[in-house]
């Protein structure tokens, strides 16, 4: 008769990359459909393993070159939802996009979302991702009441702020290195509509942008600035702030109020991304156009959720525009007292370098608790760099500037930082290592990122 024991499923030998398509790596990829299959993969006495969700980390966080990767995308079952509390229990590979599809029509939105909705919740906890509301609502993990973690022994451990809290804080932002997040409970946010009431605010330079962020801080839950990083001198850091709050029913015009939770609208002016190729000329042209069309005075606007939160998702494969060699997104943060000087310094260096990245995003952060979490109070800047000769060396010089001012670089986007820089930027590494080694004494969970940064040494 048939055997009922679950054996390790077949792997697929695959060439993988992060969202930036740099670097590439080859791994045996497992894709379990059932939890017992995942357990068989985790406990197989074999090489190093790392979990991978939607593959939206930019660099090498979900890569494990010449080792094993477990693709969790089939473990994406929603388990329960209570509309009275907004509490959703689901498996970790459920994506933000699925949450919006299923729950926005019922008046609920993810409490925090990064700039793409095609990320999994497990990956979002592992990278402790933030969104446009970080200054007010903190990261996504701050709205997770608990999660179940499958550790190297195959055992499943419930982790929360009260229960196994050391492992909880080592897993939030822990880049998947403590185990596989299986299941979690998330508090969804009640919204009256699928629209945001907000403004596009023009800021002529870095000082004006910071001043605008501080001014709107209390008024708007969501804020982000698109920076033209090719403007110079007194216009350095000129930007457009996009700010808003979920619109209440009485804020909607009658035509939208009839169907306030429709997830299909396309009505508001999109930040225009329409470009043939990226070189320094097209990037500068793009930024000039972008700034020009938003030149009108600030005015209240109704945005639909899609164009407000995900202007880049409308171009599914936008990383490909950077060409075959891929790109690195550099995201750093400075403490409040150093933010202005740090921004000026880094933007000037980028302008001088002419390594033209069209996408530069500025955002104000609040505090964060994970041992390896990226956010800290202050300002964060994110910029894309197509892979070109000399680019990696250039980013090393940015690291020096950021580190000198007490800042740090985001691991979920990193593909190139040195272990020394990482150590200096993440002072809680020792505490993290203690929690990591108690859950995974043999260091079975490791990734291309963890080896590159020597995170367990």
């Amino acid at each position, binding site marked *: 008769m048939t055997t009922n024991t679950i054996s390790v499923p*077949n*792997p697929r030998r695959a060439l993988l990359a992060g969202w930036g398509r740099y670097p590439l790596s080859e791994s045996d990829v497992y894709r379990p*459909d059932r939890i017992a299959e995942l357990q068989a993969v985790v406990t197989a006495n074999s090489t190093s393993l790392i979990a991978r969700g939607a593959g939206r980390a930019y660099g090498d966080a979900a890569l494990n070159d010449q080792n094993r990767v477990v693709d969790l995308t089939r473990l994406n*079952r929603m388990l329960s939802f209570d509309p009275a509390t907004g509490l959703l229990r689901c498996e970790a590979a459920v994506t933000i996009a699925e949450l919006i599809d299923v729950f926005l029509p019922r008046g609920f939105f993810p409490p925090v979302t990064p700039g793409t909705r095609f990320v999994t919740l497990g990956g979002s906890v592992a990278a402790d991702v933030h969104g446009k509301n970080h200054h007010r609502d903190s990261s996504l993990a701050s709205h997770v009441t608990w999660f179940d973690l499958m550790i190297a022994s195959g055992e499943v451990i419930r982790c929360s702020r009260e229960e196994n809290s050391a492992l909880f804080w080592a897993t939030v932002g822990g880049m998947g290195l403590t185990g596989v997040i299986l299941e979690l409970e998330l508090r969804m946010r009640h919204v009256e509509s699928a629209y945001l009431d907000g403004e596009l605010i023009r800021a002529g330079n870095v000082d004006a942008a910071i001043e605008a962020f501080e001014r709107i801080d209390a008024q708007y839950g969501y804020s982000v600035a698109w920076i033209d990083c090719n403007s110079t001198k007194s216009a350095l850091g000129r930007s457009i702030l996009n700010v808003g709050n979920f619109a209440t029913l009485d804020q909607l015009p009658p035509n939208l109020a009839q169907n306030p939770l429709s997830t299909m609208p396309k009505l508001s002016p999109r930040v225009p991304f329409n470009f043939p190729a990226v070189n320094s000329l097209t990037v500068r042209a793009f930024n000039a156009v972008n700034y020009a069309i938003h030149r009108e005075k600030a005015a209240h606007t109704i945005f639909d959720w899609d164009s407000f939160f995900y202007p880049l998702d409308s171009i599914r494969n936008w990383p490909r525009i950077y060409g075959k060699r891929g790109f690195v997104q550099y995201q750093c943060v400075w403490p409040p007292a150093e933010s202005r000087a740090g921004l000026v310094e880094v933007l000037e260096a980028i302008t001088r370098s002419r390594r033209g990245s069209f996408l530069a995003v500025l955002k104000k952060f609040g505090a964060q608790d994970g041992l390896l979490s990226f956010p800290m109070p202050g300002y964060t800047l994110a910029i894309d760099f197509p892979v070109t000769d000399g680019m990696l060396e250039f980013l090393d010089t940015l690291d020096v500037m950021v580190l000198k001012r007490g800042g740090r670089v985001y691991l979920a986007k990193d593909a190139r930082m040195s272990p020394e820089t990482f150590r200096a930027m993440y002072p809680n590494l020792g505490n993290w290592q203690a929690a990591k080694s108690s859950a995974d004494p043999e260091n079975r969970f490791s990734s291309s990122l963890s080896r590159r940064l020597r995170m367990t040494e």
Partner: protein
Amino acid sequence: MNRVLILGATSPIARALALRFASDGAQLYLAARNADEARRVAEDVSARAGVTALSGTFDASDFASHDEFVRHAAAALGGLDGVVVCFGTLGDEDSAQTDPGEALATIHQNFTGAVSLITLAARHLEQQRSGFIIVIGSVAGERGRKKNYVYGSAKGALATFAQGLRGRLAASGVHVMTVKLGTVDTRMTWGREGALLTIAPAKAADLIYAAYRKRAEVVYVPWFWRLIMGAIRMIPESRFKRVSF
């Protein structure tokens, strides 16, 4: 109210199909070998479609349990209007070639277990003179190949069984649909070389559901497998025994 029993509900195609049925207001009983996995799929369908799907466990090879299982599922649903047979496994084809135990296990998982369960469900539907049976087969059943002929023979037999059943139940208004699946992105094809023309499970479920709505008799998923298999069936046996795919 459409009361539907889905057998083998934890397969990705069955999951997607269950969601289609639930979104159209069907009441579902989702059954699989593992109770916890079946429950998770039922909860998922329930949360996404805003319904309450039931779940339970069955063992395709435990024939003696089938009668009680089908009665139980029908009672839990308050009646039975349709059955979707999604279970099946490729098994270990290498050992099935030399180990009769492994070969028979594959036959039970794909054919005899289905025959037992379908016969019981058909009895129920025939009595009430309405309902449907969807049998998920495979293009592997169209011609025996040296690589997977044990699995292929089970799927071929299942298609023949469904064909005859369709004729017999036509008089009682019970519709039997045979699905001939091509390659779908599931664990059957994951990591296997030569899995060409693969489609996503959700796409396969869409096509199956659309065919069900049109009351198709035999449907290839996707359609072009009808042409491919037509061509493959025409290769003379003397040549076919030497091809390696």
